[in-house]
């Protein structure tokens, strides 16, 4: 069991990194990686939302949507997307209120990207994958933790690179987003190195 959890975390975080090899959550990845501090905030916010969302959606899926375990004895899995989106939107709203009250500086720094976690496809992606592919709650949560941790790792890495990049002489036409996209590509190529990691 412990070994399975570790394998799930490492696989989700590094080998099939959510941003760099599955291309989910690119919007926030490119949008909030100007400064390491904000990137950390975003990463932690996404971890928080993904963990809570996965836990809640797993429960909803288990109790109401899956035919075998549902209290209705009906196959309602087609409701997954809409029900999960509801839950995620609610959690993001909650997070927004919480940050506004207790960490206003982070709330300001995240700006428009905070409500956009709602539409961050990494969150829905994880919730759906766990609901469809994982029958064990603990391993599902480990997968969610790994995925969100992987998002946090990659966004902080990109932010650190971008901070260093500021001091370099970049050709005019590459300034801004283009050079960031190139950096993201290089990071994705580097992360394919993990695919040879033989675990489990």
């Amino acid at each position, binding site marked *: 069991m412990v070994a399975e959890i570790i394998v799930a975390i490492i696989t989700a975080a590094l080998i099939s990194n959510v941003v760099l090899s599955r291309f989910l959550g690119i919007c926030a990845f490119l949008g909030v990686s100007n400064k390491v501090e904000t990137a950390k905030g975003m990463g932690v916010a996404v971890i928080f939302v993904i963990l809570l969302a996965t836990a809640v959606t797993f429960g909803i899926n288990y109790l109401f949507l899956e035919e075998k375990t549902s209290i209705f004895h009906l196959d309602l899995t087609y409701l997954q997307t*809409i029900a999960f989106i509801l839950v995620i939107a609610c959690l993001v709203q909650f997070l927004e209120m*919480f940050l506004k009250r207790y960490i206003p500086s982070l709330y300001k720094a995240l700006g428009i990207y905070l409500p956009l976690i709602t539409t961050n496809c990494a969150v829905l992606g994880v919730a759906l994958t766990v609901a469809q592919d994982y029958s064990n709650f603990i391993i599902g949560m480990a997968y969610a933790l790994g995925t969100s941790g992987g998002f946090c790792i990659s966004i902080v890495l990109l932010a650190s690179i971008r901070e260093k990049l500021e001091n370099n002489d970049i050709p005019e036409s590459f300034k801004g987003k283009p050079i960031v996209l190139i950096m993201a590509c290089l990071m994705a190529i580097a992360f394919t190195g993990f695919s040879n990691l033989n675990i489990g």
Partner: protein
Amino acid sequence: MNIIISSVVLLAIIALIIGIFLGISSEIFKVEVDEKILKVRECLPGNNCGGCGYAGCDALAEAIAKGEAAVNQCPVGGAPVAAKISEVMGVDAGTSTKMVAFVRCNGTCVNANKSYEYTGVKDCRIAASLPNAGEKACRNACLGYGTCVAACKFDAISIVDGVAKVDEEKCVACKACINACPMKVIELVPYGKKHKVECSNKDKGKVAMDACKVSCIACGMCERTCSVGAIKVTNGIAIMDYEKCNDCGACAEKCPRKCITK
């Protein structure tokens, strides 16, 4: 039938629980916001276009409430919104005059002489980097390739006869064209102003005269004519002080090059 009812009921219950949860937590995590910000925010249109230069309507509302932004900063709302906000803020709306963009060049195809033919990409930013800053003989001319037209979100600029023209009714003074223009020939002027210097040529005498039929040659006639000292020739070009100018039009009458609009 059963499946439809149970799915509707299920979603309704989930939504209800979420609604109650969010309602309670919004009470718990309530933040005291300055009432002024809320009131100003209510006046703003709320389409978060960013035309004001702030991140969105919320950011602008905060800046206005703090006094960092002008009450008429919102380009979309225009005068009616500015009037409402000034009421909230207790500032007289009349103190802020509506500004519009104005292209300081009248080097149309007829007026401006060309030093060569340019057949490259139709973009001012590229043309401006060519020798003599574009094909027009004047080095400070509007190039007329429409970089400002592309920058304008409000469809207020068009290229007429090789020169950009601003529609004063549509212009909201968002400065997008001013920032886009590589030649720096666009500036903000008060709305409805009749007499403006429609030239940016910094050369003097014969050089300016050869470049364009309606170029300012820095002769200083307008400066001598003006009774209120509102127009001055500096760096080879007549500059008008719109706060002092009373729009009498004496300078436009006297200008030998007809580069002041009437």
